[in-house]
């Protein structure tokens, strides 16, 4: 294949990636956009393989290994992506991102061992060193993010005194080895140390970040992997890698900023403030002491719901965990039949990832028109008879508005406290993911219905039917 044709086909692939991403960011064409990108990917891969075969670049053993590798990766990827439950999707994305970063680092390791023998220029070795570090951080960081979300380890921040100093020292050591490799070149074992340190930094960097902030971290690491891939493109002089990697690096960075904006926080606050540490502030502790909660019965709440005019349902992660999206829809349909107006108020970061609730409720075929975004519905709570909070907590916590010391202070929340009655479906009084107490649970307007969200909703359905 001529170099001209190779470049032309890579260009086609790059255009398809760009069009695909454009479509992915509009609700109407999102699914098609994903497929357009996939077609671009197939073109880029086939072009590469055909080119390598025509140039006799494949050794027999190499070709066999490549085929086996593609089959294994294909099966693992397909089965993993098909089997994963909807609630576990964020950690699946973390996993797929991590392995991509790992692949980029390995490609760079090989190239570096290859070129180190002939005293490369700094321009030659810099991309390899960059890719090893960033790819390594992305791999290790993603694995920790996966472990936290999969609850293989605690989701609360793991902190110790001087942590940021230690992390800074690791980063400084990485810079030192990187400098040595690029400037002095053949330093024995320097690149092994570099890879190990990058892995350590990836773990150390994600440990102090709370589980609730993982989507932002995964998005950032996604951008990192993109940049590592772009760097690999410089090593291999490959247009497709540079363009695709950079597209992801740039858009991923912007997306990370947009995500932390949606939580009303700065990116520095998300990454370094260890939000979610379960240390009850003096205000929070004092606020909950001596206050009682009102626990209700499903029958009474069912009757109240059935005789309301307007009900708003606020879904949260608890709904996802209990897989209660179908029951909640059943309840909503039943209430509508009785003449109650029912809407769902969707907080942008309800659940474990933005859009999580939309995905879940769409799975239960909840009509799209009933899903109201925060800004659209926030003024309607004051004319609402009952708000049903299903497994949500932090996104309705008035502390975000009222207590400047709170870690979630400044986050836009749903104005649930404006409603006439509030019903919380919760498993226990345990605080939400951000680890802070919720004043609203002790409000005289609030009734608690303890238990698994699905069980409680099933009881409510029966109660509404009987009412």
């Amino acid at each position: 294949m001529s170099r001209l044709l190779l470049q032309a086909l890579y260009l086609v692939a790059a255009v398809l990636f760009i069009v695909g991403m454009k479509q992915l960011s509009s609700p109407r064409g999102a699914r098609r956009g994903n497929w357009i990108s996939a077609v671009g990917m197939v073109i880029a891969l086939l072009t590469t393989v055909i080119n390598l075969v025509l140039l006799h670049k494949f050794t027999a053993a190499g070709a066999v290994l490549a085929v086996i590798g593609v089959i294994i990766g294909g099966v693992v990827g397909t089965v993993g992506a098909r089997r994963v439950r909807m609630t576990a999707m964020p950690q699946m994305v973390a996993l797929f991102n991590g392995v991509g970063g790992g692949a980029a680092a390995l490609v760079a390791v090989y190239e570096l061992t290859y070129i180190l023998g002939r005293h490369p220029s700094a321009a030659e070795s810099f991309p390899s060193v960059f890719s090893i570090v960033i790819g390594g951080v992305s791999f290790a960081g993603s694995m920790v993010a996966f472990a936290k979300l999969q609850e293989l380890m605690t989701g609360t921040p793991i902190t110790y005194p001087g942590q940021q100093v230690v992390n800074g020292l690791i980063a400084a050591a990485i810079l030192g080895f990187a400098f040595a490799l690029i400037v002095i070149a053949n330093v024995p074992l320097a690149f092994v140390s570099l890879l190990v340190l990058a892995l350590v930094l990836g773990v150390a960097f994600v440990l102090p970040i709370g589980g609730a902030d993982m989507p932002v971290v995964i998005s950032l690491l996604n951008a990192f992997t993109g940049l590592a891939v772009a760097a690999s493109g410089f090593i291999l002089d490959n247009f497709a890698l540079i363009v695709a990697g950079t597209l992801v690096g740039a858009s991923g960075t912007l997306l990370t900023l947009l995500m932390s904006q949606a939580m009303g926080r700065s990116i520095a606050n998300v990454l370094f403030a260890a939000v979610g540490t379960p240390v009850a502030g003096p205000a929070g502790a004092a606020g909950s002491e001596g206050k009682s909660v009102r626990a209700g019965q499903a029958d009474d709440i069912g009757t109240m719901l059935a005789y309301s005019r307007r009900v708003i349902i606020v879904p949260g992660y608890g709904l996802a965990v209990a897989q209660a999206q179908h029951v909640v829809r059943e309840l909503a349909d039943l209430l509508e039949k009785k003449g109650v107006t029912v809407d769902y108020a969707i907080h942008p970061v309800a659940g474990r990832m933005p859009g999580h609730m939309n995905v879940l409720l769409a799975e239960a075929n909840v009509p799209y028109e009933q899903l109201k975004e925060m800004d659209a519905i926030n003024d309607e709570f004051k004319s609402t008879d009952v708000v049903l909070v299903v497994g949500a907590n932090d996104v309705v916590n008035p502390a975000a508005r009222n207590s400047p010391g709170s870690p979630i202070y400044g986050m836009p929340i749903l104005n649930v406290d404006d409603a006439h009655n509030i019903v919380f479906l919760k498993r226990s009084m345990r605080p939400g993911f951000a680890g802070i107490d919720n004043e609203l649970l002790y409000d005289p307007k609030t009734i608690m219905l303890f238990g698994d969200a699905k069980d409680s909703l099933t009881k409510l359905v029966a109660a509404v039917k009987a009412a």
Partner: protein
Amino acid sequence: MTTELLTLVTYFVLAIFVGIEVISKVPTILHTPLMSGTNAIHGIILVGALIIAGSAQDPLGYVLGFVAVVLATTNVVGGFVVTDRMLEMFRGRKA
């Protein structure tokens, strides 16, 4: 700096601007699918992994190339499939 390197840098710089521009109007509900979809796109590192695996000459090259191919393929295939599953849930909406 050689002309070849400058050409590569040019691709890089232009792609930064395109990458930012192309997703700048994404609504919140699509943040996660978009993250997942771009995640699949960086699986293009499979191109690099194939180049290494196919042309490796020594045991180290075989091992690194093979593992890189497995990881990168997982990234590509898993990334596109999981994104499609997420977006499948949005069907039926009349937006």
